[in-house]
């Protein structure tokens, strides 16, 4: 199955933003499936094949703490933002805000710009 060029661009655009979304969502502890549900409820649909490896990579980088918990005969790995992760999240949020401010005028339709 091939990916259309527009889909590839979308994927590239989303890749960096997903890290920000995941880090922000993990201010509270979540296990893989519950994190995916929370992101979906917020309007961010992320594939499991992308999300679960991404969480592990962030944990490997020390941005997330993880802990196995047992409940009603099931075990789940819970992830939460670490101290380093909180620091990085703050930096990334500032970067995102600056980018958003810079991009917004550029993304306005041409006719809207002319009328200003």
């Amino acid at each position: 199955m091939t990916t259309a060029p527009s889909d590839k661009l979308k994927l590239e655009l989303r890749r960096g933003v997903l890290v920000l979304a995941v880090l922000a969502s993990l201010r509270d502890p979540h296990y893989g499936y519950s994190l995916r549900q929370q992101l979906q409820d917020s309007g961010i649909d992320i594939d499991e094949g992308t999300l679960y490896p991404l969480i592990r990579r962030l944990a490997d980088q020390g941005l997330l703490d993880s802990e196995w918990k047992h409940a009603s005969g099931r075990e789940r790995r819970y992830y939460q933002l670490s101290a380093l992760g909180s620091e990085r999240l703050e930096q990334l949020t500032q970067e995102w805000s600056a980018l958003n401010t810079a991009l917004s005028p550029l993304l306005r339709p041409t006719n809207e710009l002319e009328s200003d």
Partner: protein
Amino acid sequence: MDMVERYIAAVKRELPSRKRDDIGRELEANIMDKIEALEAQHGQLNEAQVSELLISMGHPRSVAHEFCPPKPLVSVELMPIYLNTLYMVLGILFVISSLEVATRWLSGTEMTLLLYMKALASHFLNAGYFAFTWVTIGFIVMTRDNKKQSPAATCAWSPAKLLPAVNGWQHIRLQDIFTDLATTLFLALVIWYPILRPGPGIESIFNAQVWTVLLWFTPVIAIAVMSSLWQLRTRLWTPRLLMINIGVSSAFLAMALWMMLNTPILRISETTWEGAISAVNIERCVFVVVLFVAGIALYEIIRDGRRLLKLR
């Protein structure tokens, strides 16, 4: 749940052993969460629905690669240096192989031209496999050690010192340089072998008059070798290099034309070639080869002349 277990086992098989159990455990927890959520909506899942769910997660190998992307043996950062090293080493080996096999060919009595080509290919391939293996192993070790050598770190450079390269043709390919180098060194060896390794039965393959002229032609061959070595250093056609190449090609053209006018070129006796090919036919073949050399030299004179005009 047998299908889920088999799926997780298939993913684990594709993972490195140190991460296998941890990722397998987490993947199982995630799949069970998903099944639980679906069962809460639709009731007990049947085999077909579980199968559909697993298919939606992706092929076990793809899932494993998402968790642990395969690492290339040689890192992307080292790849340009790796390829350059490989070409250089193989080029040098080709030159050495040509000289070694030519030495054996000239000292032997029964080695035909066909056997020479076969011996050259065999010698070069044997040395090439060995060099390829060791160069690759070296770069694999460097990749593992994470010793990334960026071009900026390996040598000091300044944009102002870079040679101007307006045209694509100005870049000289390594294989072209090594082919020229091997050819000219081979020719030098063929001419000088009877003097460098005198012995019973060792005599020049050329007739006496052609051989004498070829001996006087040696400085041109030396200039051609030096020019190739210079090309190896600059890797760029400059007006000076083009002029040298035009001079060398003109000398080769003149020599080839003179040889064609002064046949027979070779010193051949019927017994030397085992009677398989007649002396007349061999002489005719050599004449065609010399004609070909003259054609190549003429082509290079015209080509380099035009390039020189473009550069000026």
